[in-house]
């Protein structure tokens, strides 16, 4: 049986993890639109309401997260725990044709929606 959280005396103290509880955020059209902009997803008016509703239900479901007791000072690594340490790659260009090696521009370009003169083409980028 998992003994619960009281036995984690050895947890490392972290400066940046402070459990915040702002209360369940208000989900409204404004929030959904703002999030959609951040994600570069076009929204049409008709779907905003459904999305507000969906987000609310998801956040309700996700409320259980708040009910979990996080022990004081539990540092969340925030990354998937893994037994591996980064293995580094030699500083060499891979041999042509080797898996994971460089490709010629055309083979990359032909999967691009607009490829001309050996470049990816976009509408004028400002700023």
């Amino acid at each position: 049986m998992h003994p619960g959280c009281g036995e984690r005396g050895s947890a490392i103290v972290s400066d940046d993890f402070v459990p915040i509880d702002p209360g369940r955020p208000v989900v409204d059209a404004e929030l959904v639109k703002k999030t959609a902009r951040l994600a570069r997803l076009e929204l049409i008016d008709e779907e905003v309401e459904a999305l507000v509703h969906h987000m609310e239900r998801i956040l309700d479901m996700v409320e259980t997260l708040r009910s979990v007791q996080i022990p004081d000072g539990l540092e969340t690594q925030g990354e998937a725990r893994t037994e591996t340490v980064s293995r580094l790659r030699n500083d060499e260009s891979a041999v042509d044709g080797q898996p994971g090696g460089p490709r010629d521009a055309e083979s990359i370009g032909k999967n691009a929606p607009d490829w001309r003169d050996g470049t990816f083409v976009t509408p004028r980028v400002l700023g």
Partner: protein
Amino acid sequence: MSWQTVVGLEIHAQMATRSKMFCSCRRETGVDPNHNICPVCSGWPGALPVINEAAVRYAIRAAICLDCTIQRESRFDRKNYFYPDLPKGYQISQFYRPYALGGAISFEREDATAGRLPLVRIHMEEDAGKTIHSADGTSRIDLNRCSSPLLEIVTEPLEMSGIEAASCVRSLRDLLRWVGVTDGDMEKGNLRCDVNVSVRPDASAELGTRTELKNLNSFVSIQRSVEVESKRQIEVLEKGGTIRQETRLWDQDLEVTEEMRSKEDSPDYRYFPEPDLPVVVIEQQDIDRERQSLPELPAERFRRLVDDLGLDPKEASPILARRENCDFFFALLEAGLSAASASNWFRGEVLRHLNDRSERIDQYPLAAEAIASVVKAVEEDRISVGKGREILQQALDEQRDPSEILSESGEQISDHSALVGWVTSVMSENPGAVNKIKSGDSKPMGFLMGQLMKASGGQAHPRLAQELLQKMIEQD
């Protein structure tokens, strides 16, 4: 009212590795667009990053040179934003746990005292590609540069002038270039600098609101933009206004800072740890190994040049501009020259030649030993300074070894009887000039010397000949 300008720097240095940060594409410039790309740096589905070990080593080197504290464990994070030259839609960087903290850049203040700009942190990250505006109204994306390895160096804010800010960046650049971490060429874009500027009434006041200046691609623009922006801020504040925290673009031609047109003032990067890369571990032995492989650093060499060899600090600085320069200088010493001679001839001949042609020491064709032999001939009075310079120039023009040319050309003749012979013949051929000199007019002296040098085939020792000529005219 006197104001203090406070500057903080964010410098990006591209590391001089052979391949990119997370893939094995070659890192090179001057090739066709998209010449060096692959699924990883192009952000294709299914591709995963793998860290370049040389980038980590160079990062360790940089941190050692800058006296940072290297963290045993650091992590990569994703910085999420949309931009066409960022194909994954995120940049892999280090946000929460950079590999190096603290440290400092040593620089020279305007009053020649030593300055110290503390660092906040250094971290590794990947570069983005390039967006080129095309004549047909579109933009074109070139991913050659995308995912090249970068070091981002972030400094604390410090009171300093525009000149000093440029000096800081130059010192940092010189140091990183010295140890081979970066090519550091601002014009080629492998060293980029953003500057944060604020002003305050005096050192005891709180830091003022800062603005961030971008688009600085030379030391001059760093200096001028700081000067112009701090002046702008002071004017605003003196009129009772407030400074808005914002990013401003430097306009090199008009010498003004301008508001950026972009609407996103503070983008939300939604940082989170990169799940495709486990922790990076840097052990003490990795640090020790890099430390041992470092060449003697500029500070130590400066000490040697100035304290041990007695050079003036102003002379030392062009020698220290590049490690290769310094190596050449020490080769001259090793070939037997004194510090003073080596310094004079190195700056006067070698650097002058290189600067005229905007070349670097590795393009200089003459060997240090060969130059030294010519210099020694001058110092031993076997040839004149002018002759020495001539020989070196001839060597460069004809692409020959100067010591060869030296042995071909006669040495200057100091033999008293030979000199007497020439002086006598010149005096007898030019009685009018001699009389003029005797009556107090020294102007013809130059003419007579010219004749004497002609008569001697250029080989008369100029100083001795002139002294003798003078004496013999007086005695005439």
